[in-house]
């Protein structure tokens, strides 16, 4: 073999390493950004966490709560996972210069390729249905204000890419099938082509060189497309295909109604209630340490699981469509809370990149610049958004964390709530009644 015959292998190896290398770079950036969040202990109850991941992410149990979208999604998901076995063969072929290296598997190979084709066809059907839901039927949840611009484009772009990838896969197989029929050299007779044999009808009468050209072009575009798609993830809601797994693992295990107790507050309250504590004693801790801020006004004040949540959100809007505040025309949209958190986190990440690894205050924050007080105060903490999320995202925890900042750092609660809270402080009830009258109801 001459040197020139290795050129495709070399080009392939370069493309592959570029594609994977750039992806790894993005994963590193993603991990760094998520780690900007506060630490939170999620090391407990590992068996339950694995179970949740298997059930919710792998098993898609919460997707089928909405049957049409759920079943269509499972088709695309199963198609994606299984067709990736074919990508393995493509990569080996690309590096070694072989063709259909798994062909010796015989009938197993036929079965595999046949299944990939049927799945690819089903994916095409599902993607068309998804497109119609987003663009023709115009489902309400895809047309909320936060979906304008990039999010809407992103949603459609993913569908187009999937359509093109499946199309290329089937075209490649169709040309291959035709070449096999013509006993073209190098094109080993292998695989079953339940779908692409019909596409092959279009290729009848084409010469072997033309067919090889079609097959090669489709093959190359397919793998380049996959590598490009891999690198598109970081910029897209489609990141959920990877992050859904860690996200469901780290998702909340406690009953949904259990909100976290803030440890720093516990320490202070214990000190206040301890009769033996000396209120004038110098603080035992290192004086230089800045006192921890209560609640969150920016992404760095959230914990890293909440930031992981933000990157995992696929903007499906099930949370928002179940939100009682949103249904009654309030500005609050739990999906927007997640999208804002991700957008701000990206902005902070870019700031760090531009300033040699250090965040330089930019006069902006998550509160007010992204999420308004009006949105935060509209929440009923009913947990409908948490329940609705198919991949264990908890928008409510972010809302509460930001309320904590408003109330404890800024005393910026609505006036009626301040009245309610001073009633609790003064007489142990949210209303202005005397605590000594607590038992009057018995004799009324």
């Amino acid at each position, binding site marked *: 073999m001459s040197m020139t015959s290795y050129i495709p292998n070399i080009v392939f190896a370069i493309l592959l390493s570029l594609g994977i290398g750039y992806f790894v770079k993005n994963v590193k950036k993603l991990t760094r950004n998520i780690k900007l969040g506060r630490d939170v202990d999620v090391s407990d109850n590992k068996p339950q966490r694995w179970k949740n991941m298997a059930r919710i992410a792998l098993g898609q149990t919460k997707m089928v709560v909405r049957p049409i979208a759920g079943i269509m999604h499972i088709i695309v998901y199963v198609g994606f996972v299984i067709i990736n076995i074919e990508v393995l063969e493509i990569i080996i072929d690309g590096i070694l210069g072989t063709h259909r290296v798994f062909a010796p598997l015989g009938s197993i190979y036929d079965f595999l390729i046949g299944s990939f084709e049927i799945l690819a066809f089903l994916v095409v059907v599902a993607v068309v249905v998804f497109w119609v839901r987003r663009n023709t039927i115009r489902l309400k949840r895809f047309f909320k204000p936060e979906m304008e611009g990039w999010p809407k484009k992103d949603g459609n772009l993913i569908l187009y890419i999937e359509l093109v990838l499946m199309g290329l896969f089937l075209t490649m197989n169709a040309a291959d099938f035709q070449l096999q029929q013509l006993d073209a050299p190098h094109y080993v007779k292998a695989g079953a082509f339940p779908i692409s044999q019909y596409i092959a009808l279009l290729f009848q009468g084409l010469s072997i060189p033309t067919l090889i050209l079609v097959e090669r072009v489709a093959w190359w575009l397919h793998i380049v497309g996959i590598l490009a798609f891999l690198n598109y993830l970081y910029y897209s809601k489609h990141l959920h295909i990877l992050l859904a797994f860690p996200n469901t693992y780290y998702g909340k295990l*406690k*009953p*949904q*109604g*259990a*909100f976290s*107790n*803030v440890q720093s*507050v*516990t320490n*202070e*309250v*214990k000190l*206040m*209630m301890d009769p033996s504590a000396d209120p004038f004693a110098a603080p035992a801790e290192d004086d230089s340490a800045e006192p921890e801020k209560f609640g969150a006004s920016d992404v760095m004040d959230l914990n890293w699981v909440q930031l992981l949540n933000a990157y995992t959100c696929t903007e499906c809007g099930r949370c928002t469509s*179940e939100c*009682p*505040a949103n*249904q*009654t*025309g*309030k500005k609050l949209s739990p999906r927007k809370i997640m999208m804002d958190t991700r957008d701000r986190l990206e902005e902070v990440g870019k700031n760090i990149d531009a300033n040699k690894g250090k965040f330089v205050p930019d006069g902006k924050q998550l509160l007010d610049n992204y999420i308004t007080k*009006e949105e935060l*105060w*509209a*929440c*009923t*903490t*009913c*947990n*409908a958004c*948490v*329940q609705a999320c198919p991949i264990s995202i908890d928008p409510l925890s972010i809302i509460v964390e*930001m*309320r*904590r*900042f408003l*109330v*404890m750092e800024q005393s910026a*609660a*609505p006036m*009626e*709530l301040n*009245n*309610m*809270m001073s009633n*609790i402080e003064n007489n*142990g*009830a*949210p*209303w202005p*009644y005397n*605590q*000594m*009258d*607590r*038992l009057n*109801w*018995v004799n*009324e």
Partner: protein
Amino acid sequence: MNNMEIMAEVLQVRTMEEFMAQGIQPEILFWVGSAGSYDDRAKKISRAFVKILNRAKVDFAVLGPEESCTGDVAKRAGNEFLFQMQAMMNIEVLNGYEIKRIVTCDPHSFNTLKNEYPSLGGSYDVVHHTQYIKELIDAKRLTLEGQVYKEKRITFHDPCYLGRANSVYDAPRDIIKKTNANIVEMKRHKKTALCCGAGGAQMFKEPEKGDMDINILRTKDALETNPNIIATGCPYCNTMMTDGIKAHEKEDTIQVLDVAELIANSL
């Protein structure tokens, strides 16, 4: 029997202080909650529940003036300081009396006592009154006469902090069935139930600008089942749904009752 008769019945209620003075422990502590103590509508629910406890000869206590707000609403509003102050004070009282088991008619108190007090040093077996009533019926300590609501159409509105927050869906329905009523479910119920609009401290403030109040929407869900009675298990839901049927001008034909009242009226 109607509510007037519940009110007329003399209720037996003893405080923890009285139990302590006699050196005995009650079976259970009834956590009345601020709404149950002060809100005119919720007080009737407290009375109905005590009637049930009396009828089942449950040896229960209340804290009376020693009870204070659980801090739930302060916590949801973001005031973690106030919440933890309230929690620590209550825990001191509860632990001082060596309380083991608590029952409450308020899902918010239920959730906070059950889920948020333990890490602050207060671990108790906490049950919602619908769960406790079911226990009493199952143990044959309580028998229902089952005539008053026979064949009545009752729809149950799941309180968020009982349902989604703590996955208690069956107990209230099981005991409503014991009244021989027909349960008619709203389209969204159990996990997908719509909030009444009062949670997260909304009870104490005006709603943000929108095109409808949440309780109006939720009452609409309930009215679609064409019910005789809307049942709830939460004093705040009760207020919201009661206001809701008034807004829909249905207050003359449809009642909003707590599950405890359904049971108390069926004894």
